[in-house]
């Protein structure tokens, strides 16, 4: 799901990803290439489209690698932006069994593909290039470290993970760069994310799957708690400061339907809906709802 409902990407990484294959009888393939199309409606006008290519490879029965590369396109009232999104790399390992389920761990990283300082020139910006808010950026602009653990069986997936931003980005969006926008109050709804360093996120995924021979569906909850405040550079005070109300819970409900055309080919549709949100979201990681479609080729 790229940078999904309200997360910075770790929810779809390795052992923490939703709708994982689990079967005692099916012969699971060792490699897969997946194409995912994602549409996310943010809390404001931007609509985020992502075309993600994902590659998974297993080494033996217990270790797997995952690489994800999204191409993103964002459209909103302030303009639009396209480009390569952050690259995700992770490795997972099955470490044991518990209650007829497997326990897996994942460590990974997100590699930024730009500094989150894409600009857009329009009449609203006085025909001058103006920095776009984080909502419009294709990259979060930071190196992130991710770790997680999950337990999965035929029916349930329980996962938890942590994502820590190691660096700050170079976003310099300012409200004043959009002098001609007809509704100044709208522009002010975009939180300032000047040289943002995101706080640490902790996620929990609870998913109930109903698996059948060649299809499955699932219902899940995805609470993500930002445990530390976001930090930006205050240009007035000329110092970095913690932003209040950036911590808290973002809760989404998810449902998915997957259909296996064969062992090699599969389709999946996922719908996510925001249930609660954080007050202030400088990173733009808020979605009212998301819809994603995936085609996976396993070999």
């Amino acid at each position, binding site marked *: 799901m790229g940078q999904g409902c309200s997360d910075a990407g770790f929810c779809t990484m390795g052992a923490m990803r939703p709708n994982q294959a689990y079967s005692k*009888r*099916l*012969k699971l393939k060792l490699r897969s290439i997946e194409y995912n199309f994602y549409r996310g409606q943010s809390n404001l006008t931007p609509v985020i489209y992502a075309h993600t290519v994902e590659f998974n490879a297993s080494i033996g029965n217990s270790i797997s690698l995952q690489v994800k590369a999204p191409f993103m396109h964002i459209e909103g009232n302030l303009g639009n932006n396209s480009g390569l999104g952050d690259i995700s790399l992770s490795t997972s390992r099955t470490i044991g069994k518990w209650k007829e389920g497997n326990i897996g761990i994942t460590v990974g990283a997100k590699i930024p593909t730009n500094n989150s300082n894409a600009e857009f020139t329009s009449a609203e910006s006085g025909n001058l290039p103006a920095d776009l808010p984080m909502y419009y950026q294709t990259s979060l602009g930071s190196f992130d470290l991710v770790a997680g653990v999950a337990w999965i069986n035929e029916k349930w997936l329980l996962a938890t993970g942590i994502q820590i931003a190691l660096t700050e980005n170079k976003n310099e969006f300012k409200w004043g760069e959009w002098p001609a926008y007809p509704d100044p109050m709208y522009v002010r709804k975009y939180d300032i994310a000047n040289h943002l360093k995101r706080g640490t996120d902790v996620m929990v995924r609870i998913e109930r799957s109903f698996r*059948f*021979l*060649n299809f499955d569906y699932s219902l899940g909850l995805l609470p993500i708690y930002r445990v530390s405040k976001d930090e930006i550079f205050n240009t007035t005070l000329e110092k970095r400061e913690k932003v209040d109300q950036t911590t808290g819970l973002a809760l989404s409900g998810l449902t998915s339907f997957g259909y*296996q055309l*064969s*062992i090699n080919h599969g389709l999946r549709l996922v719908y996510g809906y925001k249930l609660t949100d954080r007050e202030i979201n400088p990173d733009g990681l808020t979605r009212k709802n998301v819809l994603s479609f995936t085609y996976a080729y396993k070999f």
Partner: protein
Amino acid sequence: MRKELFFLFLISYSVLFAQQELYEEADRFYAKNDWSAAYDLFSESSVVFLQETKWNDYIHCNVRMADCLLRMTLFQEGLALSDSILNFIKKWSSSDTLMLADVNRIKGEIWLNLGNNEKALEHLHIAEKIYPKTINLPLAECYNLLGIIYWNNQNQSISRQYHQMALEIKSKVVGDNSLTVADSYNNLGLLYTNSNPSLAYDYFEKALKTYENQLGTLHPKVGYCLINMGKSQLNSGWIDQAQELIIKAELIWGELYKYDHPAKAFTFLAKGEVFEYANDQNNALLSYETALQMYVRLFGEKHPEVANTYLKIGGLFQSKSNFKNAVLSFQRAIYSNIRSPFVENIYSITPLDDYFNADILLASLLSKAKALEALHFEKSLKIKDLKQAIVTYQQADTLLNKLRTIRKSEADQLRLGEQSLLIYENGIQLCEVLALQPAFFESYKKIAFSFSERSKAALLLKSIEDTKPTAFKGLPERMQLQESKIKDSLALIALVRLKDPTNKSYQQKEFALNQAYVSLQNDIKLNYPDYFELKYPSSLIGLDDFQKLLKEGEIALTYLEGNQSLIVLLISSDEIEIVVKPLPVEYKKWIPGLRNSISYQLDKQTRKISSELYNFLLPELPKNTSKIIIIPDGKLHQLPFEVLYDITSNKWLIENYEISYAYSATLWSKTITENTLDENTGIALAAPVEFNQSGLVTLPDSEKETQDLKYLFLSHRMPTYQVLREKATEESIKNANFGKYSFLHFATHGVVDMQNPSRSCIYLQPDSVNDGQLFAGEIYGLNFTSKLVSLSACETGLGQFASGEGILGLTRALTFAGAKQLLVSLWSVSDESTAQLMVGFYTNVIRNNSETSFSQALQQAKLDLLHHDQWKKPYYWAPFILIGN
């Protein structure tokens, strides 16, 4: 005149000499394997003999000609000539029966070459009967051919006997270095190729030595022997040596046969096997396909060799994970083995009425089912693949039941049992998968249940075959013979029709036989319903009907012990759950371990193993469960589930539930009976107390036990009938008066012969007519109407266990004799505690009357012992189990 006579004599002598010369010349060509030339000369000879009306010589020449046709692989011509010889013998020469035997032997060999084992058997058995049972070569050859056919039919032990008899005769007649003895070595080698390849190699080596010495290196026998040696080397893992031997054979065929020949095709198959073993799949496939094309050119598409080659090709595709092609190849293997035209649609139902070779067909069906399974799970995920796999397993099961009637030896029956286990284990597991699909929840649960029931029903047929009772439920021997004769004729006519499907006369005969068979079946069904049900247990109970019989709180646990997994069906009145568990490594040790620990009264060890078994064997039971009906399988037949120990509640299973046992849901449904007791309800008691048979100790407490029971019943004004000591004879039991009582109680020794179930017996007193051993075979013929038979004796609940078959012992025989329910023991029991338990049990039965079931009464009696300091260990209270409702 003298001159004239002299000339006449000279001419006659010259003619005779010329005839003799001609015949000997033909014989020389025959010996040199120039069968074509031999045929021509025998033919010339025969014409002369015909002109001179020397019928026996004429017939003899024709027999040799038929033999030559057989060697030239002109099978149809050989059959036609054999038939005309038989007609001729009937008309002109009934005196020389040996030639009749020879013709039948040749016909048998031709049918063998045509892949029709049943037809071949028919003729060879005729020949076998005619040949004098002295040491003579034709008889040995006949034995040899019979050995080959029984080997083809997987009747390996019978085959081995025939080959060894053939070898013995041949060695005596012609010495160890003769060709015919080498043939026997070769055949014996074939028997051991898989089971003991190094022994097989030794046999082949002996044969080869003789072949090469006598025939030179360029001879078909040398070629075949080399291939056989190659195969045995391959089975020992010597690939290079195997390849070398097969190439040598190939060179021989190159010299001997310019065109297609079965030997060449056979060699390509062997080459393919070597390549496959060496994991060179491309060359393996190439070899198999070359063999296939040659076989098709030689025999056409419909032939067992063609089917067998398709089977090999399918196996190769399967190992390459090319499941689609594997399924298609197996489909072709099936259709090459039946008369119906090929249908490419793998989801169609294949008619299996007319087949050439049942074993190859069974293997093809099983392979197809497994390939469909693999196609689903490893490739397509299409539900229709799984559905078709189940249908194919069902077809294989039907065929397998037919095969049970063909198989003769116990060892071969057991092999069939293993194949049937594969069908039921895989079939139920697939049903479990499909039963999870919303569209099939119910239907596949029902099929799983029917697979389970069929796995138990197989036992019924086997018990009949094994026990061979003198009279089954009163069916006259005449009708049994009639039934058997019609079935044999039907089988034969079906085989004839394979070769000539359009022949109307055969069609009419088949129709007439079918009509006679249906009429006979109706007659049996009407007049001997018990026998009909026993012999044709097709009316197995369905899931719905079984569930209707289960009361609130009752559940049935049906077990199937597979090769890889234990399958449990948990059935209540409104639900069925299928649980599949992989068999843990320690499973094999658990039950003997538990039995030993109980036997030696090792309490801690008993609780440890029984708690492990509790966790493994018992699925989560519905909360309202009060009674469990156990339908065991395999080793579980030896386990009293009462001793399963729940470590969380610190209770034995018997403390929480009533427990009873059944052999199958169908049999259980027939045991349902009202337990209502009235003043007509009585007990018949038998206690010989002392025994003449060696090794059997006196049972002094048994007399007291029966006396106590007698007074218990009398005190409730119920009739009793007691046969004690010398009066407890077989006759007293066979007497109709004994069997009419509601309760039959035997306080005596019993023995279950694990190797030979029909020798299982109950010990009684001998008399002038009987030996005092009431064998299982005799029990089948008895007619009980009792609610309960108790065997207060040692290990009477055990029996022979056969994989995929179940357990065979006294209990089976008693059930068929009419006992609705049985109380038997699983291990040697203490005389005193048994008496306590029995008295307690019957007291509970009588006191509570209809308000309590036998299982409740037994539960209470066991709990009384369990709470008694002296008898609290499972050794005392656990051995007796109740079979029935």
